[in-house]
C-alpha cells in the first residue's frame, strides 16, 4: 500500500537524484518509478497494509479523503507551499536539471534558493506523470506512509489491536495535519515529509532495525534544512540508549546524505560563484552526535567523549559550514555568542504552548509523558520508548534554540506560523511513543 513511497524508494531516489545533479545531469522522468521498482525486494513487507480495527480504519480513510481532496483540488493554497516548495518543483518539472538559469544565475529569482530539493524533485516527478494537480497525490501518500508506519511499528511491538487503532485514528484526525493550515498535509510544505521521516526513524529505533534508521537519517538533511539537526538528535539518542549498530548506521546514513546534499546546497547558494569548502564542516555534526551519545552510554569514557563532541560542535559553529539559511544564521549567531536572552522566555513559552495546543495537537505530547510517568511510578524502565521521549524533548528544545538564535527580524513570524509546524513534525513520533508505552500498561485479560 505504501511501497511506492517507502523509505527505501525515497532513499534510492534521493541518492540517484543528488548524484546526477552533482554530475550536472538532469533527472530522467522515469527515475522515481525505477527507484520504486528497485526498492520492491526490500520494501515488499510494506506492500501488505497492517490490519486496523474499524475505528482506526474509519479515521484513516476520512482523513486520507480530506487530505487527497485538499491536495489535488488546486495548487498550494498556503504561502510557502506555493512560493517556495511549489515554485522549485515547477522548475524541476521542466527537465529535472539544476543547470537552468533559475538555479545557476544569481540575479534569477528563486525564493527558496538553497532549500533542500527532495520534496520538489518528488513533486516534479509525480507531476510529470499525473499533471500538476494529480502529481500532488504525493502528499496524501507521504501522510499515509507516516500513519501506516505507526500502525506497523505498534503491531510489531505486540500492542493491543484496538489500542493501535485508537493511536492511528488519533494521529489521522489530528488537526495539525488534517486541516488546511500552514504545514498541513496538503499545504505543500515539507514539514509532512520531515514528520514521516521522523516517524520512520522512531519506528526503526523501536524495532532495532539499522537499515531504515540509516535511511531516515540519510533523508532528513535532504528534506529540510533542520533535518541535519533532527538526524543528529536521533543518532545521539540511539547511541545514548546503548548499543552500537543503530547509532553507527544512523551516523553513516547522515554522513552519506550530507555528502550528497551539502556540496550541492553550497553550489546552489553560490549561484555561479565559487562555492568553497565550508560545507565540509557539516559532516562533523553526525560524528559529534555519535560521540556525544556513546559518551553518555559509557560511564568510563563519558567525560572525554562528551568533551570531544562538544569540541566538534564548536568547530562546526566556528567554521560556519551552514549555507545562508535561517539555520545557518542561527549557528552564526551562536558562534558570535549573540544570544537574545530577553526573547528566550516567550519563545520557550510558545514552544510549550504549541505542544499542548488543544486545537492543533491535543494530548499528543501529553499522553506519552503521562504514560511514562505512570510506568516510572510503578518502577518500570521506559526501554526504547524512553529514547523516543528524549528525542521529542530535545527536538522541542532545538526548536526553541533555533527561533531564539535565528534571524531577529523573523522571530515574530516564526512564533506566528513556524513553531506550530516544527512541533507538529514530531506528532508521529509522539503517537508511536504513546502506543509503545500504553502497550506496557495494557489491562490484564479479563477472567473467563
Amino acid at each position: 500500500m505504501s511501497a511506492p513511497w517507502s523509505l527505501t524508494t525515497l532513499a534510492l531516489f534521493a541518492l540517484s537524484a543528488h548524484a546526477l545533479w552533482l554530475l550536472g545531469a538532469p533527472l530522467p522522468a522515469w527515475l522515481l518509478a525505477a527507484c520504486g521498482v528497485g526498492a520492491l525486494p526490500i520494501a515488499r513487507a510494506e506492500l501488505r497494509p497492517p490490519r486496523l480495527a474499524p475505528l482506526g480504519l474509519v479515521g484513516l480513510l476520512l482523513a486520507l479523503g480530506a487530505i487527497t481532496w485538499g491536495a489535488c483540488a488546486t495548487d498550494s493554497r498556503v504561502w510557502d507551499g506555493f512560493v517556495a516548495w511549489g515554485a522549485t518543483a515547477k522548475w524541476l518539472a521542466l527537465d529535472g536539471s539544476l543547470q537552468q538559469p533559475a538555479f545557476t544565475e544569481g540575479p534569477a529569482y528563486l525564493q527558496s534558493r538553497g532549500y533542500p530539493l527532495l520534496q520538489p524533485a518528488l513533486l516534479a516527478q509525480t507531476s510529470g506523470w499525473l499533471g500538476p494537480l494529480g502529481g500532488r497525490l504525493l502528499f496524501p501518500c507521504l501522510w499515509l506512509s507516516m500513519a501506516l508506519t505507526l500502525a506497523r511499528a505498534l503491531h510489531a511491538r505486540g500492542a493491543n489491536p484496538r489500542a493501535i487503532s485508537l493511536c492511528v485514528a488519533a494521529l489521522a484526525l489530528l488537526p495539525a495535519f488534517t486541516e488546511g493550515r500552514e504545514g498541513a498535509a496538503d499545504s505543500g510544505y515539507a514539514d509532512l515529509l520531515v514528520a514521516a521521516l521522523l516517524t520512520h526513524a522512531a519506528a526503526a529505533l523501536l524495532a532495532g532495525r539499522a537499515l531504515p534508521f540509516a535511511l531516515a537519517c540519510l533523508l532528513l538533511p535532504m528534506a529540510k534544512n533542520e533535518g541535519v539537526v533532527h538526524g543528529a538528535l536521533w543518532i545521539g539518542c540511539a547511541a545514548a540508549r546503548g548499543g552500537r549498530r543503530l547509532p553507527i548506521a544512523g551516523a553513516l546514513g547522515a554522513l552519506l546524505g550530507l555528502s550528497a546534499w551539502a556540496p550541492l546546497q553550497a553550489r546552489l547558494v553560490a549561484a555561479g560563484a565559487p562555492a568553497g569548502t565550508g560545507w565540509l564542516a557539516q559532516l562533523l555534526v553526525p560524528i559529534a552526535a555519535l560521540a556525544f551519545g556513546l559518551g553518555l552510554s559509557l560511564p568510563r569514557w563519558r567525560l572525554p567523549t562528551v568533551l570531544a563532541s562538544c569540541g566538534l560542535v564548536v568547530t562546526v559553529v566556528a567554521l560556519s559550514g551552514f549555507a545562508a539559511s535561517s539555520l545557518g544564521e542561527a549557528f552564526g549567531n551562536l558562534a558570535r555568542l549573540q544570544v537574545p536572552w530577553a526573547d528566550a522566555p516567550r519563545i520557550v513559552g510558545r514552544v510549550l504552548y504549541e505542544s499542548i495546543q488543544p486545537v492543533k495537537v491535543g494530548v499528543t505530547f501529553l499522553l506519552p509523558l503521562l504514560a511514562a510517568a505512570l510506568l516510572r511510578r510503578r518502577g518500570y524502565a521506559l526501554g526504547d520508548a524512553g529514547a523516543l521521549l528524549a528525542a521529542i524533548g530535545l527536538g522541542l528544545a532545538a526548536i526553541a534554540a533555533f527561533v531564539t538564535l535565528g534571524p531577529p527580524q523573523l522571530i515574530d513570524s516564526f512564533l506566528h506560523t513556524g513553531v506550530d509546524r516544527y512541533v507538529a513534525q514530531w506528532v508521529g513520533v509522539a503517537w508511536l511513543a504513546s502506543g509503545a508505552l500504553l502497550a506496557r500498561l495494557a489491562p490484564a485479560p479479563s477472567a473467563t
Partner: protein
Amino acid sequence: MPVVTPKPSRISRISRWAGVAPAWLAALLLAQVAFGLLRFPQGSIRKRGEAITAARAAGPLWHFPHADGETKRLVAWLARAAPPDEVIVYDGPGHGLMEALAAVLAPRLVAHVSAVGPDGTALGRRVFAGSPNGEPAAGRIGVVDATDGSELRWTLRGPQ
C-alpha cells in the same frame, strides 16, 4: 459460598474495550479521537471546501488578497501575457508580493533588473516588454517595480 464479582464500572469497561490501562489514560485517548472526529466535518471538510472554492475563483490572485487593484491587474496580466521564453524583470529587494508573483509566473524566468545587459537581454533571453494598457514599449523594457514589497507596479524603462 458464592463468589461475588463486583460489576465493572463504565470507565473500566472502556479501558478493557480500548486495550489501554489505567482507565483515565484510555479515557484521554478516546477523548482525543472523539475530538478529532467531532472537529472533522467543520475543520477538515467545510473550511477546506470554502478555501478550495475561493482559490479556484481567485485563480492566480489567491495569494494577493490584500493587494491593491493595480497590483492585482498587473499579476493577472503578467500571468496571462508573459511568454514562457522571455524573462520578466523586477526591481527591488524581492520580498513580499514579489515572492508570490515569481511563483505565479514559474517556470517563467524572473530576474533582477541588474541582469539586463546593454543589448536589452537578460540571462540570454529577451526581456518581456509588453504593457497592460497597450502602451508601445518603443525600445524600452518592462520592469516590475517591487521596491515596496506590498505593491507591484509596471514601469517601462529605457536601456540601462
